[in-house]
Structures are given as C-alpha cells and as structure tokens.
C-alpha cells in the first residue's frame, strides 16, 4: 500500500479503445487496454460495445494485477472514474455499468468524467501547463478550447467533420487501411508538390468536408498520391494552426496545448511549435500514450475532481453521448 497519496482507477471506453489505469498525481501505476478493430472501415457502435463488454473483465484483471505487483491493492483506491461522454452510447453504457459495480463493491466514490475535458487535463498534467489554449483534434472532435470563468469554453470548432474523420475518409477512398492518418502522414513526407485545395476558415471555426472532396477529385484526376497527401495535410493543418493562433490572440494567453489522436502527427507538431515560437508562446503536447484515448486521462481527471470535492452520485451517473465540453464546471483552475 502506498501511503499518503490518493489513487484513482480510470476507465475509458467512448469509442474503439477500451482502457483502464490506476494513477496517482505522481504518475501511472498500472494500465491495460484492449482495442476493437473494425473488420472494415468505420466503427460499428454495437460491435464496439460488444467488444468492450466481452473484454472489460479481462482488462480490469490485468490492471489490478499490475497494480498489485506495484504494491497497490483495490482497497487502496480512493475513487473510480469513468468516461461519461461524449461518445457512442452503447460503449459508454458498458463502461459505466462496470464502474458503478466497482464503486459499490469497493465502497468508494464514483466520478463521471467528460472525455474531452480529460484530454485537456491529462495534457495540462503531463506538460505542466496552467491555462493554455487547447487544440483538440481527434477522429470525433476538432475544437479550439480555452478556460474562462469556471468552464472550458469552445472558441472554435469544425462546421462539419473532424480532421481525423476527414483524413480517414480520404485515406479509405484512396485505398489506405484504417487508421488512415498515419499512412497519409508517411506518404506526405517525401512529396514535394503542392496541389491547391480549399482553405476554409470562418473566424475561429473551420470546415474540412470540402477539402476532403477536393483531395479525392485531385487524386481521381491523376495527381500523385503523395502530393495529394502532402497538400491535404498542409492545407488542413494550416487552417488549424491559424485558428489556434487567432484564439491565442483573442484570449491573450501564452500557452498552446495540442491533444487528441491527431496530435501524434509530427508535421502538425512542427507547424504549431513554429507558430508559437514566433509569437513567444509556449507549445507542448503530451507523450503519445496520453494523447490517444486512454484510461490514465480519465483517472487523472477523476483525481483532480476528487481533490476538488467533486464526485458523481449513482443517480447522476447516466451516460451522456452528447456531453459538451462547456457543460463541465471547472473549479480547479483559478
């Protein structure tokens, strides 16, 4: 048993990745995951949920085993945190059910965590940031977020599809396997030509669906795939960086945090760090393991909430597939 520090178990399962972790404020003590791989293309909510319910027992066993080899037993936990939304309803319900059962068995509080807020919190925690502008880019979300008076406010977001979704759709169309983002990145690297593609920014909002269509058309018209991949990335990421910079200017903040699955893209990292360098802002992104969906981010956020006296009574623990980032009361920033 580790004395003194609080320990929280977090379970993430909003989409294809099922993951659990035990953390303290000092770091991750144990983690385990199981990923649902769709047979073809996109995610099928019911099949993903079936995957989660078939595997959650095994994932929890593994995380508890690793934890106990580190000297942490289930009864040492202070709370169980789970991703309450946003996400796919059937997946969310599977995870919530397990979390409720654990909280009851162990007699410890339950904490419902907003998945998007968890991406931000694990980033702030891992990068040591206080009050950043957050660019949150994943398969399901593309938002520019910053804290103001008790909430994370959305300053800008996609008007149609997310960047991850746009990349995956394009990748699938040109015959690349899921997930397409990393493959597009690889193909773009050696390419040198730029094919003009639509650049659509509306204030701090942006749109990717026209870009995805134009990229397909360019490919169909015979442009080399590498060039189209490069142009897709350069155009889409320029839009995101521009909007990020506009948010920094508008909010008068000086830290920029990149989170979500697409944060693994090296070119996007490079562009954001150049922008921040020129502005005198600090740029950072969490380690890869904290960037994609993971249990540790839920656990860390749960821990922060617990330290601030926030827990979720069972009656209030219903999942919320449309849980908005700005619905969460944030009491731990100022």
């Amino acid at each position, binding site marked *: 048993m580790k004395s003194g520090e609080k320990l929280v178990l977090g379970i993430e399962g909003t989409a294809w990745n099922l993951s659990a972790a035990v953390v303290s404020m000092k770091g991750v003590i144990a983690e385990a995951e199981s990923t649902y791989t769709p047979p073809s293309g996109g995610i099928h909510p019911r099949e993903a949920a079936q995957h989660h319910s078939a595997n959650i027992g095994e994932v929890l066993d593994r995380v508890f085993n690793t934890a106990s080899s580190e000297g942490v037993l289930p009864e040492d936990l202070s709370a169980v945190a789970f991703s309450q939304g946003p996400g796919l309803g059937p997946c969310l319900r599977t995870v919530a059910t397990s979390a409720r059962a654990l909280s009851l068995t162990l007699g410890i509080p339950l904490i419902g965590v907003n998945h998007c807020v968890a991406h931000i919190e694990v980033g702030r925690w891992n990068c040591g940031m206080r009050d950043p502008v957050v660019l949150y880019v994943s398969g399901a979300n593309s938002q520019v977020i910053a804290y103001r008076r008790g909430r994370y406010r959305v300053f800008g977001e996609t008007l149609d599809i997310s960047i991850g979704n746009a990349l995956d759709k394009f990748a699938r169309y040109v015959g690349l396997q899921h997930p397409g983002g990393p493959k597009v990145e690889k193909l773009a690297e050696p390419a040198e030509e730029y094919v003009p593609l639509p650049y659509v920014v509306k204030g701090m909002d942006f749109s990717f669906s026209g870009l995805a269509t134009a990229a397909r058309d360019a490919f169909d018209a015979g442009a080399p795939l590498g060039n189209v991949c490069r142009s897709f990335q350069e155009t889409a990421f320029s839009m995101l960086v521009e909007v990020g910079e506009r948010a920094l200017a508008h909010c008068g903040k000086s830290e920029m945090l990149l989170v979500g699955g697409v944060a693994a893209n090296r070119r996007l990292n490079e562009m954001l760090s150049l*922008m921040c360098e020129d502005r005198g802002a600090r740029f950072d992104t969490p380690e890869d393991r904290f960037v994609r969906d993971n249990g540790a981010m839920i656990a860390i956020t749960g821990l922060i909430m617990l330290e601030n006296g926030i827990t979720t009574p069972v009656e209030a623990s219903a999942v919320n597939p449309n849980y908005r980032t700005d619905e969460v009361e944030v009491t731990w920033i100022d």
Partner: protein
Amino acid sequence: MDRLNECDGPIYMNPSDGKYSTSRDILFVARGAEAVVEIFSDIAVKTRIPKRYRLKEIDTRMRKNRTFTEARIMSEARRIGIPTPIIKDLSDYVIVMNRVHGRLLKDCITTELCERVGALVGLLHKGGMIHGDLTTSNMILSEDGRIYMIDFGLSFFDTEIESRGVDVHVLFQTLKSTHDGYEDLTEAFKKGYRPILDCADDVLNREREIEKRGRYL
C-alpha cells in the same frame, strides 16, 4: 488594383525601405493573429507578415488575397453606411488606414451595443457581404460613439442564407465563449438584426441548425 485613395492625410513612405510613418512616432503595436498593426496617432498600418509554419505557396496566396479582400470589402461596407476605417494606401501585404480612436467591443460589450451590432451586421448582409470573422475583437466603439467594423480579411460577397448563418454563428460563439450573459446578448443582437433584413428569421434559424452540426457523431 488601383490604390484606394479615399482620403488624404499626412503619411509618408520612406522610399528606401518602403516603410510608412507619420510625422509623429509610432505609439504601439497591436498583434492580431495574422497581422501586425502599427498604431500611430492618426493612422494604423496593418501588415500581414509571413508565417513560417505554412508552405510558401499557401502563405503568399493567403496574405495577398486577404489584404486585397480586406481593402475591397472594407471600402464597400463603408459605402453602404457601415463605419470602417478609411483606407489611405494599399500594397500586396499592407493596408494603411485611419486609426479609430476607441475601445475594442471585447472590453465594453453591453446589450445596447449588441443590438447596434445586430443592425450593422444586418446592413452588411443586406449589402451582399459576409464579414467572415465577426468577433468582439474586430469591432471598435469609437470615441464619437460609433461602432466600427475592422478586420475584413476573411470577408466575401455572398447572399446565401448559409453564409449569413455561419457569420452570425461565429459571432454567437464568441459571445458565448468570451462574455457573460450570452442569452441577453444574442437576444439583443437579434432585435437589432431582424428589422434590417427580410429573411432575418431564416438566417437566425439556420444559425441554430449550424450550432448543432460538428458535434460528436
């Protein structure tokens, strides 16, 4: 494009480096997202500086198009009665304009002002223009009490309900994220906007629809 010489005033260009100055010294530099704006006592010089993060092809295209667009639409908006700075000189990446003395609406927004913003945006839309970046950082309440619109780099000519809806949506999002009293502010905006434009309700309904898009699927 011809230089937009709508007004003349005491500004000087140093032929050796192409930089502008007035008889008086620079007061301060405002830094937006895209541009560096040097503020002199009577003029503002907005320069779209190169961005290292984006490809040359994108960067040059962007900065030229936006500078040109901004000058064009800022003048057109003024022609139909919307207070905007008078443009004094223009080159590929630089706009020299009158300085507006006042405060950003971001720092002094009220429901009364928001109602007047509604009327101004209505007028702009009726005139066939979309601002493209309607935020309270891009409006100035001048010392003579008028609301000036600035920052027209993302503007374009269009009369579609969708474009107008997105324009209003961008503003509402800023009201929600940056200010308190979102409901009152948007209601005030609508009150000012409705009487100006025949299809105002279509635009406002579309705005609500747009708000629901882009959410988690």
